[in-house]
């Protein structure tokens, strides 16, 4: 359908639209007009992504003189694929109605591992070795060498791409990763470098958060994006965690050992160069004297990860004199490693601010703050000079230099915590020195400063006023949308008691109680026998899930479950989990369906949808609190309290409930869909906990469903499923329109939006 929002003609690829989608677009358009940032919460299952995409692309079409670029950030690669899938649909529609002027170039961007088509490079096991294998074939000095020595192996795809030079362009269209690979294979061009090259021309770029938030990656990929871009962070409820993670580094014993080995290797290389090509080291020295940390004209294939500190914090100064010489730099690093080794030997937990850490480093190892700050740049320069391609081997020393640079750059918002072992496993010594960032606003600040509009959106941003504080920005629009319901297609319930009427909870003192474990099991046994197709269960942690499944296996509960449905489980092995999910979907497509056991805060909870028949019921076992005794968490809570006056308990509950809401929100995708959500813990019945759930869940949580036992829940589930299986009127009844047609919109435009059917 085609309709107008104020002066923008919106092309929307469906015949109908939900009222909240329309409102969402209106708000979004206002934010774009104001060239400001916005914060929008809209329930899952209301077509956020398509509303967003179609408004922004239409906005671009309506302002041909100042074309905006859309940078769409997703959390995961599969969400990226999904977004591009929806964009494809939209693009087809717009081209059909507008002809070629609506054509855009949209690309997904990922790492070499996901884009490479060279089979020899792909044979490498993990991402880091793929990166290294690629560099081995594409680095500028390797290619220079190959002109003399024909035995040096190069990558044909990269060579072809280089040969095509500026002619290597992607024709307009929407490219998923698969499409990029297919195109690259077809033309013989390297898809990875092609995609990176096309970033500056593309109208829509879809990539992962860290390509914008993590300075290491953003420094290379997102450097050249223009200010007139709209940045969207989708599913952004965890954005604060991504931000602080991007600036955190830790050092373990293995890191130090590896770094020492790396230094030996570097030392050898330096000696070799001294003997054969001393001029090169001298040239590097001269360059550093002149104040250029890095050559400005690095070819794409030579670049690796950028400086871990944020761009505006990097000093544009000459590298200090004491580390200009390669040998001296190696000595400094050795002293640093030694110092870190001593600190790791501690018996107690130590917590320190970066300032005191740097000063004690200065007094004991004689390394100044400024030297630390330049560690990263100096190492990068040295590795380029020494022509090191196997970057994966040199990760440990890289880590140590990242750490040094960060600790030298930031005085506040960070703390250093040294732990001799993990709190939860005191019997296994595993010393770790962590530099952890507490301030989420640090990493995202350059993004807010640089781009004209940043949209933060998700299904769960409650409480919505907390996010501007955590990320310290002022949104021009901040709204939370309700869901207009054609029928009550979600059914949340709070289960407080088991079949024996005893309370259930994952509270620390109750979680190992066999009665609770049995009650949880019985709940599932009953549920799988009445719920069709897919059932998803979330547990509070891996170890808890591991334990409870083992117990269920011993007591025969698992066998009873298996009589009804197949069982699939998320494990810590990503490959296995992916296959399990794939099988789970196939099992839901046919037969009696399946159960999927998963973990809140896990990879599945973060990004996999269990919509339609892939999930008719979610059971959230327990409240997914963080491990509150963690030193890092304590430090962060302290920081939040001091700087933002956010209370500890409030933050913990907020965090746990957003995870729970995230887990259960995965079942619903559109209003034609339906699903039940069971919060199985007595703590959910308390108002202070429950009220932190997003509004669209709360509005469906009836008072009668707040304190249920297993048998009551079963009864409600039966009724609900029977009701939902009936045909219904999609357009909504009783005067409340839940599906708008073109005419409705036109009428509304005349009378004003106030009439909106809510």
């Amino acid at each position, binding site marked *: 359908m085609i309709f107008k929002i104020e002066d923008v003609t919106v092309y929307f690829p469906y015949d109908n639209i939900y009222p909240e989608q329309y409102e969402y677009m209106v708000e979004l358009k206002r934010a774009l007009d104001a060239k400001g940032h916005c914060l929008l919460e809209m329930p899952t299952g209301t077509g956020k992504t398509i509303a967003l995409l179609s408004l922004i692309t239409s906005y671009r079409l309506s302002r041909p003189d100042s074309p905006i670029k859309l940078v769409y950030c997703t959390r995961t690669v599969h969400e990226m694929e999904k977004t591009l899938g929806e964009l494809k649909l939209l693009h087809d529609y717009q081209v059909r109605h507008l002809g070629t002027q609506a054509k855009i170039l949209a690309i997904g961007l990922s790492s070499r591992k996901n884009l490479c088509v060279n089979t020899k490079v792909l044979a490498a096991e993990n991402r880091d070795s793929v990166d290294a294998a690629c560099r081995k074939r594409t680095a500028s000095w390797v290619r220079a060498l190959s002109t003399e020595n024909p035995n040096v192996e190069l990558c044909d795809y990269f060579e072809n791409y280089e040969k095509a030079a500026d002619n290597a362009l992607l024709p307009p269209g929407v490219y998923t990763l698969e499409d990029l690979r297919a195109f690259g294979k077809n033309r013989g061009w390297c898809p990875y470098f092609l995609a990176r090259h096309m970033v500056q021309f593309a109208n829509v770029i879809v990539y992962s958060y860290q390509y914008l938030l993590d300075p290491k990656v953003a420094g290379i990929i997102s450097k050249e994006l223009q200010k007139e871009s709209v940045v969207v962070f989708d599913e952004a409820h965890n954005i604060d965690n991504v931000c602080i993670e991007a600036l955190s580094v830790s050092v373990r014993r293995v890191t130090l050992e590896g770094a020492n080995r790396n230094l030996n290797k570097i030392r050898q290389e330096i000696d070799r160069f001294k003997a054969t090509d001393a001029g090169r080291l001298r040239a590097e020295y001269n360059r550093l004297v002149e104040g250029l940390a890095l050559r400005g004209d690095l070819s794409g294939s030579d670049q690796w990860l950028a400086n871990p500190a944020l761009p505006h914090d990097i000093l544009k100064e000459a590298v200090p004199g004491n580390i200009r010489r390669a040998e001296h730099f190696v000595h400094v690093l050795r002293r640093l490693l030694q110092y870190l080794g001593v600190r790791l030997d501690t018996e107690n937990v130590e917590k320190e601010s970066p300032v005191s850490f740097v000063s004690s480093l200065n007094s004991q190892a004689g390394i100044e703050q400024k030297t630390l700050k330049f560690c990263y740049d100096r190492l990068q320069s040295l590795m380029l000079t020494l022509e090191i391609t196997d970057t994966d081997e040199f990760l440990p020393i890289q*880590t140590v230099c990242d750490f040094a640079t960060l600790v030298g750059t930031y005085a506040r918002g960070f703390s250093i915590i040294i732990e001799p072992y993990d709190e939860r496993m005191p019997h296994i010594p595993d010393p770790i020195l962590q530099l952890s960032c507490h301030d989420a606003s640090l990493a995202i600040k350059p993004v807010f400063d640089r781009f004209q509009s940043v949209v933060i959106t998700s299904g769960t941003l409650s409480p919505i006023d907390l996010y501007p504080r955590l990320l310290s920005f002022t949104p021009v629009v901040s709204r939370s949308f309700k869901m207009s319901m054609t029928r009550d297609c979600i059914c949340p319930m709070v289960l407080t008691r088991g079949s024996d009427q005893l309370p259930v909870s994952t509270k620390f003192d109750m979680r190992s109680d066999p009665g609770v474990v049995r009650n949880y099991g019985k709940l599932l046994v009953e549920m799988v026998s009445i719920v069709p197709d897919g059932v998803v269960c979330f547990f509070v942690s891996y170890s808890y899930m591991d334990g409870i499944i083992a117990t269920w296996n011993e007591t025969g509960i698992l066998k009873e479950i298996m009589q009804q449905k197949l069982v699939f489980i998320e494990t810590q092995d990503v490959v296995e989990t992916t296959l399990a999910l794939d099988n789970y979907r196939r099992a839901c497509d046919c037969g009696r369906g399946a159960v999927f056991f998963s973990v809140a805060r896990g990879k599945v909870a973060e990004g996999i949808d269990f919509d339609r028949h892939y999930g008719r019921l979610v059971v959230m076992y327990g409240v997914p609190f963080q491990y509150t005794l963690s030193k890092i968490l304590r430090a962060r809570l302290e920081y939040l309290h001091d700087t933002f006056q956010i209370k500890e308990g409030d933050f913990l509950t907020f965090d746990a409930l957003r995870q729970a809401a995230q887990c259960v929100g995965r079942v619903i995708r559109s209003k034609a869909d339906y699903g039940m959500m069971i919060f199985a813990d007595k703590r959910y019945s308390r108002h202070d906990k429950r009220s932190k759930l997003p509004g669209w869940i709360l509005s469906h949580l009836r008072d009668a469903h707040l304190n249920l036992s297993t048998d009551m829940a079963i009864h409600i589930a039966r009724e609900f499923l029977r009701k939902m299986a009936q045909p219904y009127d999609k357009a909504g009844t009783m005067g409340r329109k839940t599906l708008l047609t073109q005419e409705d919109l036109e009428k509304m435009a005349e009378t004003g939006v106030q009439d909106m059917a809510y």
Partner: protein
Amino acid sequence: MAGGQVEKRVKYKSSVKDPGTPGFLRIREGMLLFVPNDPKSDSKLKVLTQNIKSQKNTKEGSNKPPWLNLTNKLGKSHIFEFENYPDMHACRDFITKALAKCEEEPNKSAVSTSSEQLSIKELELRFKLLRENSELQRLHKQFVESKVLTEDEFWATRKKLLGKDSIRKSKQQVGLKSMMVSGIKPSTDGRTNRVTFNLTPEIIFQIFAEKPAVRQAFINYVPSKMTEKDFWTKYFRAEYLYSTKNTAVAAAEAAEDEELAVFLKPDEILARETRQKIRRVDPTLDMEADQGDDYTHLMDHGIQRDGTMDVVEPQNDQFKRSLLQDLNRHAAVVLEGRSIDVESEDTRIVAEALTRVKQVSKADGETTKDANLERLERMSRLAGMEDLQAPQNFPLAPLSIKDPRDYFESQQGNVLNVPRGAKGLKRNVHEAYGLLKESILEIRATGLSDPLIRPEVSFEVFSSLTRTISTAKNIIGKNPRESFLDRLPKSTKDEVLHVSPTFSSVLSDKKLYMY
């Protein structure tokens, strides 16, 4: 077979618990004779070979005495305990041969005198058909039990049903049970530490399907290196080691015994298959791609111990395998279903067939691009939001299951509009009756001719019948239960309901005259 007869010293038991009566077992072609040592004992037994349905025997090497269990067609079983295994085998072989001979004979005779020699199978099939098909059952009751037809006459016309059904039955593939193999609990005798595992072909199949390494080991080792029994003993020993979760012991035992180590090591074939499969998963699920995109969690970057991710004890030990992995693997195999069509007791054949199937599917995955295309198509289909779109108009054929009575109601109007009215109707009925009567007389006189009844006559009869039913309903009116139709005998009514709507319309088109 000296003289076509075998004689062995045995103990005869009428049931498993029975201590047994010592005596001689004499087997001849065609019959089996047991003579007790004690002539006063009443357990003298004579069994005709053709009455033996099946025989079972205990496996050599198990700790049971050599028993031979014969089941006759009535379901009663006779157990003979032999003195040693060779004796039992000799007898078993003899009976097998005799049975084979018996089977050939009734097959031959079945053609000539089918009424007497019905194989049990066929009988069972007939019963099954009757059970499943209530219509047939009704007919059967009606005709056979009222002695209109004999049993054989009844079935003779329905040979097709019997034949087709038996084909269909063999094609239905049975899925796998969703019970875990690790759920097999050994039986213990309670006194010693000895445990006994009962392996059925079903279980073996499942083990082979879930653990390709075990399958491969079986092909490699049995029987060249060890017997099948030794193989399974080792396997369960390994399983036991897993269940104790004592990795140190497992490692030590594996170091000593390389065959045992095969079971304890991670499954390499499985790992290879996994790598194959991961390339074909739905991209909207592919979390592995995610990991490849994540530079925040580059070694030691990101936050390690903030309590969001919990720690599990390091799993790098190669002798550790988690229950979760087993569960996933098991469910995947069940989902895949029974991929081979081999129903064999021979474990080796099963193992080899499975390996072949796996290789074929692997080759498929490498060559066809169709899977990839289909994957993308599915993705684009999923991208849309179903309820925002206009309902997709799939080419649907309207289901036209109607109550045939409606036809008569629809004819009502026609009937009432006919100028002839009720009087005309009556005359019409008489006319039709007259015509029919004439034809019947004709048949009596001349016998059956090619069109049984002339088309004009049948048309007249049908249309008058239709009219009668339609109008009668109109006249009787108020009480819908009681219509003209219901007054007809049940079978006639059914026939009319079935036939008239189609026939009449065809007839009125006068097309029938052509045939």
